[in-house]
């Protein structure tokens, strides 16, 4: 997808693939073939770091929200698969535009509170980048979630330690994330975001902890570019597309993705 239009964000997408696959195929209760915006009775997912749209679109299509063949339109004129996710083009599975960072947690909190008003037992999941935590709105939302006891929410942060200008430690240190979220009144779990068994176990644990008066945050250690050796562990593939040779090299390392669309 990213190679075909020579633009997009492969690094973060690869790092979060395990998380999003597990969410949509093992943990979220969704009606992909009966898509509707309100999602009453369903679990909802909000991607706050919208730039990793390639992996989300890939998972949504395979989960049945829209044809896999539509992935070939990514970032092209008149596509429903905009560079950053949007509701504007009516793509099934997307409930809010994201791209400008820091906004998804607030939206998810509203959706979670609407579920409570509707006596809807569905859960709300969110994903955020670690660099995104530098946005102040995240901390407004963090405070609000604990104050209002939004306990039907399971958030996750992609702790890959990278952002556009370099390692988060050099650009703007995030400090002790567990201590910060705990101080804000959240239940904090940690997992290896590139280990399917660990993800499965942690999701089950998190789900068992909902309804107890506290929002839940999963700190998810991942490696940017996971599965493609030359993209791993660097910020350099945040927003850069691979060329022909690099694509061939990458796909040779991930044979199961060949012949997608």
């Amino acid at each position: 997808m990213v190679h075909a239009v020579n633009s997009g964000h492969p690094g973060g997408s690869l790092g979060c693939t395990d998380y999003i696959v597990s969410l949509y195929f093992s943990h979220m209760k969704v009606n992909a073939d009966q898509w509707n915006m309100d999602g009453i009775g369903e679990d909802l997912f909000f991607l706050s770091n919208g730039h990793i749209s390639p992996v989300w679109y890939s998972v949504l299509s395979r989960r049945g929200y829209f044809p896999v063949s539509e992935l070939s339109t990514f970032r092209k004129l008149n596509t429903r698969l905009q560079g950053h996710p949007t509701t504007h083009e009516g793509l099934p599975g997307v409930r809010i535009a994201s791209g400008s960072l820091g906004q998804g947690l607030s939206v998810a909190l509203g959706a979670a509170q609407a579920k409570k008003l509707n006596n809807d037992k569905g859960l709300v999941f969110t994903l955020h980048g670690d660099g995104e935590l530098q946005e102040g709105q995240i901390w407004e939302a963090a405070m609000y979630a604990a104050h209002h006891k939004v306990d039907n929410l399971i958030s996750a942060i992609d702790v890959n330690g990278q952002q556009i200008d370099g390692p988060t430690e050099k650009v703007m240190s995030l400090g002790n994330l567990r201590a910060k979220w705990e101080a804000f009144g959240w239940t904090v779990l940690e997992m290896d975001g590139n280990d399917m068994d660990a993800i499965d176990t942690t999701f089950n644990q998190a789900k068992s902890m909902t309804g107890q008066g506290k929002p839940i945050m999963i700190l998810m250690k991942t490696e940017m570019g996971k599965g493609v050796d030359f993209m791993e562990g660097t910020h350099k593939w945040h927003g850069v597309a691979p060329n022909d040779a690099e694509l061939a090299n990458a796909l040779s390392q991930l044979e199961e993705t060949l012949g997608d669309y």
Partner: protein
Amino acid sequence: MLEFTIHNNNDTRSGFGEGLHELGKSNPKVVALCADLIGSLKMDAFKKDFPERFFQVGIAEANMMGVAAGLTIGDKIPFTGTFANFSTGRVYDQIRQSIAYSGKNVKICASHAGLTLGEDGATHQILEDIGMMAMLPHMTVINPCDFHQTKAATIALADHHGPAYLRFGRPKVPCFTAPDQKFEIGKAWHIHAGTDVTIIATGHLVWKAVEAARILEAEGISVDLINIHTIKPLDVQAIVTSAAQTGAVVTAEEHQIIGGLGSMVAQALSQHHPCPVEHVGVNDSFGESGTPDQLMQKYGLEKENIIAAAKKAIARKK
């Protein structure tokens, strides 16, 4: 003509508060959010009677806009309440991405707009909000003129699907519109028919335009007076029809001339019926501390300014 029953002197924000409270009773989908300004926004009654549908967000307006957007997912109709400055400029990107671009049915309700906020000064006296909000695609922008019109507009917004900005204020102003009025979003109110000059006013300037029109009529100048409460979508037909008859137009608003009602009227007329247009509004300036009356005088938003602008526009016809 131009005679009205003054029901009372009341603030437009109280019209919002009453309208919201009525919606609480009539529409279970309506929810309200406030950023630490319940009393200022007159949201007390809604909070008291519908506590489960009221969300205090604290001094965190960006989060409030996002939470409101989220509440629409689940079929709620959120009304957010804070000062106009914190309802627009402070949270422009949140409104743009999470509400406007996402097509969310959020009603952004904004008090203390304009100079009539008074003594707090320019940090709070936003005069750019109409322009900012009108620029967002598909955003409805409403600036009612008195207590009854604000209440009616608030109630009408619940039945209107889509993002909207409702702007009102703090001072007590004459309440002269009908208590049982039907508020039609996007439809101008033709207050008075005349032939020499068109005066188009919005918000607190509508009553001042009525006073100006009375004086002009007494001097033998026939005034076609229009209230544009919905600045977007603009009732272009009403404006063009009037301008075609009078050939001279004045706009009046408690807002920057650039980007507000004046700009939008001039744009419509330049396309459909070019004619002299004079603007009463704040001319590329910030406000300052002072009483509302002092400020309206200093910044040229009084009936005398409307009268002078009308005569200037008429003179330019000849």
